[in-house]
């Protein structure tokens, strides 16, 4: 009997927690869909120095560039649940995969080395400075990101390796598809400023109005 009561309480607590975490911020239930297309700028030039002495042995796969679309000012709950998620940024063929990772504060990112050579992942960004040292294939090190902001990630050994981690204090963001299309998680009704980020810069923003139960299409052209 005691066991049954405990199970019931545990189930209730779990259900409540899940409901709170799943519910949109602000006015629960009054949400709308926000989707659109971020016209990704043309790819800029190579972001690494020429191979003056050692040629690249194998051409690295051309990574698809994507953007990140997010609400600049987002509604937040009085008691926002901290996330304890884990994400992964791999190192393959002397490339960070994915090139852009968008996460929430509190997320821990694993940096496994899937190459046959050493890598040394580090960042000098004020949002999160870290240096994981050199480690070989099969090993992984992790970093937890507790502050919102942009973190530029590099490899100390291979100057051509770079990536971005965007850390948000809310959940209203999305990494675009390669063609620029995006859809944010259900957004509470209201008026917001939508921003489009690409390769280190906010390239576009616009005001959007989200109405309850409606789908708002908000394209982000480059100014």
């Amino acid at each position: 009997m005691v066991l049954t009561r405990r199970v019931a309480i545990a189930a209730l607590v779990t259900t409540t927690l899940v409901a709170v975490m799943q519910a949109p911020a602000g006015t629960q239930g009054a949400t709308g869909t926000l989707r659109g297309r971020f016209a990704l700028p043309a790819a800029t030039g190579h972001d690494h120095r020429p191979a003056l002495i050692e040629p690249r042995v194998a051409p690295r796969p051309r990574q698809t560039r994507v953007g990140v679309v997010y609400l600049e000012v987002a509604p937040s709950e009085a008691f926002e649940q901290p996330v304890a998620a884990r994400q992964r940024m791999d190192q393959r063929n002397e490339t960070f995969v994915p090139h852009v990772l968008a996460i929430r504060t509190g997320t821990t990112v694993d940096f496994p080395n899937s190459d046959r050579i050493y890598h040394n992942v580090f960042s000098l960004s004020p949002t999160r400075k870290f240096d994981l040292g050199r480690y070989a294939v099969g090993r992984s090190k992790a970093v937890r990101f507790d502050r919102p902001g942009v973190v530029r990630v590099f490899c100390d050994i291979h100057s051509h390796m770079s990536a971005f981690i965007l850390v948000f204090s809310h959940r209203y963001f999305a990494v675009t598809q390669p063609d620029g299309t995006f859809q944010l998680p259900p957004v509470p009704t209201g008026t917001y400023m939508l921003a489009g980020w690409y390769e280190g810069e906010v390239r576009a923003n616009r005001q959007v109005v989200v109405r309850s139960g409606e789908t708002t299409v908000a394209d982000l052209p480059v100014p």
Partner: protein
Amino acid sequence: MSRLLRLAAWAAMAAAAPCAAQEASPPRGNWFQEHVRLAGEASASMSTTEASAEGWFNYSDYENSTVRSLRLSLVGEVTFSERVALITEVRTLQFERPEAYALYVRIRPWVSQALDIHVGRIPPTFGSFPRRLYVADNPLIGMPLAFQYLTSNRADAVPASADELVSMRARGWRSDFSIGNPTEGPGLPIANALRWDSGLQVRWQRDPVTVYGAVTQGTIGDPRLSDDNGGPQLSARVVVAPHPIIALGASVADGPYLARGLAAQLPGPGGLRSHRQQAVGGDVELSRDRWLVRGEVVWNRWNQPAFDGASVRDLDALGSMLEMKYRLWPGLYAAGRVERLGFSDVATTLGPRAWDAPVTRLEVGGGWAVRRQLLLKAVWQRNRREGGRVRASDLGAVQVVTWF
């Protein structure tokens, strides 16, 4: 008005569509963006002591101190196809006339094979340190003695006797001999890391082995844009990396080093080609976690003409160094290098003496990456020499490096 907005929206969408698609397939027509890569690097170094006061320990054959210099360089790579690329580095020191330090064509005959042929002013084959081209690749400011320190031996002037040779000990920054070019000038370093040779290099890689072979105009101590003695230098290098933690390298080089202007004055029947620079080197790199340790040893021999007995005098030198780097904090590291350059004895009227004054150097310091592309370094350097007017020199130096 709404029609105008619709038209604008349509135009925006129409303009956006090809932009978004550019990532999947490279944009057509933008040949420069797809095929040209440019990078620039600027570094400025300043030491507490002038080159003359510090005993020319850090002097280079460009006649300036490596710890007191301003260097600007522009590096370019033009990829014409999967098989052919042009690589160049144009550099100026102290704002003097820019010079193409590197200018070569890279040919990959078989795209699937890591076999490259380099023709032109090519990357160095011998040794490990000269391959650290960018300033930021050197954790300290000074360069290893074996790749920078000027010995008294010259390619265009030779001493008439062993006594004259040893009288120039520690005078490599401005050496002067009675046979050949009468003008005072810098002597030769064992291997010149500041100048690239001209010729042909073949590089082949198959993990964990990389092999290099080259035929060049000059020698490792005197890389040349054009030939000056009718004899090529052959050099080779093998690097084995059995595990990511370690890389082992071995290098050899052999070529005539004397200048054509000395040909008529040489003793013996061998001529210019019998007076060679021969070198053997070994290097190791260990890295793990926050540590990076490098060691390099170079043994070198110059067959100098002798006029007081045998027709050839062997001038041997041995350079060795151990370098360590430890990353203390993101962007902050400490580093140190200890090294020695020793010389063999020659028979003089006063007995056997080292043909040049042995040098030891300790350099410790660190670097701080203020930003990803802005590095500040500070070092303290201790030099000791067993001969010459200035036998000891302690100096501090700072350097700022930036690149794009």
